[in-house]
């Protein structure tokens, strides 16, 4: 096969990483909105979303073209499938950040909310999982990917605690129901981002080793 194809694979990867940086920026804007109540970047996040949507289509078309023209095998084939899967995950993450920002700006119009201890903690874990998942893909690092899979439970637990806290708040101060519901949705969105990071990590393992570790079908001894 020609050099040309390998160059194409590299530029495809580069394009996915460009999309990854845009989404990473969106995640940090969502974090700032939640933790620092800074919603001035709503416009940026909208612009990024539009670019991400365009990139998603471009990247899928690029994958399709390379598969059709070069009929790749083995590691190249896994790589292309991996790109296409991560592409979809990134777009979903972007959507969640938009929802988070919208939700928070609505809440902030009404009142100042006190920060919940567990919320910033969870958000920090989620955004680091997301960053790490992209980094694991850049260098196809299976160990790093496995570490991400292990952190998913922690996020689930924190989300559960946050929701319990918010339920208590609603009971004590019923006038804050709207705020509390909005924050529950926000917590859910962050938890979804962690799921997408986990999916990306699973893709990394698949691309690197050809093992499908989704849904814990894998042999735990492997």
């Amino acid at each position, binding site marked *: 096969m020609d050099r040309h194809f390998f160059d194409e694979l590299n530029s495809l990867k580069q394009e996915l990483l460009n999309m990854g940086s845009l989404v990473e920026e969106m995640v940090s804007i969502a974090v700032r909105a939640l933790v620092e109540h800074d919603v001035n970047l709503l416009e940026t996040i909208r612009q990024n979303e539009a670019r991400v949507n365009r990139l998603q289509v471009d990247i899928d078309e690029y994958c399709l073209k390379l598969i059709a023209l070069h009929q790749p*095998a*083995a590691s190249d084939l896994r790589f292309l499938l991996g790109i296409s899967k991560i592409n979809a995950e990134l777009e979903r993450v972007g959507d969640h950040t938009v929802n988070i920002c919208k939700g928070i700006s609505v809440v902030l119009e009404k009142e100042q909310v006190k920060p919940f201890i567990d919320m910033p903690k969870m958000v920090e874990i989620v955004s680091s999982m997301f960053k790490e998942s992209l980094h694991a893909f850049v260098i196809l690092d299976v160990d790093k990917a496995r570490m991400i899979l292990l952190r998913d439970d922690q996020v689930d637990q924190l989300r559960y605690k946050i929701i319990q806290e918010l339920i208590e708040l609603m009971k004590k101060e019923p006038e804050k129901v709207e705020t509390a519901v909005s924050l529950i949705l926000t917590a859910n969105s962050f938890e979804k981002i962690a799921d997408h990071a986990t999916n990306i990590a699973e893709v990394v393992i698949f691309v690197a080793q050809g093992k499908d570790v989704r849904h814990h079908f894998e042999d735990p001894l492997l």
Partner: protein
Amino acid sequence: MEGDYKFRINNLNVFWGKAQALRSISIDIPANRILGIIGPSGSGKTVFLRSLNRMNDLVPEISVEGRILLDGEDIYHPDVDPVKLRKRVGMVFALPVPLPASIYDNIVFSPSLFRIRDRKKLNHLVETSLTSAFLWDEVKDRLKTSALRLSGGQQQRLCLARVLAMEPEVILLDEPCSGLDPISTAAIEDALGILKKNFTIILVTNNTKQAARVADNTAFFLMSEMIEYGATEQIFTMPRDKRTNDYVTGRFG
């Protein structure tokens, strides 16, 4: 499980003069399957194929060590008649080499059919072998015309029909599609897919994608060794050996 394997090959070493052309090859080849053999030029694919019907015997410089069992019987045993063996294990070559005779005669002139005199039987054999080689419909109205007037792809299918007329058990093919266009190639590949119900097929190909399309199992040869052997699906999605991955992704050399 003896019956499930057509060939069982243990520690095959082949020397070409002093040079080693094959190094300790051990492989069990399942019956009624297509085995694809891939590997770069000079890796030993043809030498391997020719060991399976003792065509290497015809080259004085070649010596063969190790054991090759066909249906459990050692094909290099002194009692084995190589001519009979080659009837059981037929071979189709890279370049189609039809005889300068009619399509019909190309099939009935096969040495092993020499003694058949019964016209009806011969007609039947011509029709069935051409049908099995997916050529009958294209040539049935011109069986008496010269085989040399067929297209390259048709000639190759005619050569396949000649081998089929000998009613072999195993068909060896050495790059049978190397000079063929995609449509003729597809015709051969389709034929192989049907023929494997009745034959064991071993296909050497320089085109890894062809092995991926048609072979049930694939063996990768490199520098006289068999590096990896497995289900085709595994070889082309997650090869175990890095050299296999490099070869099937075109990263070699």
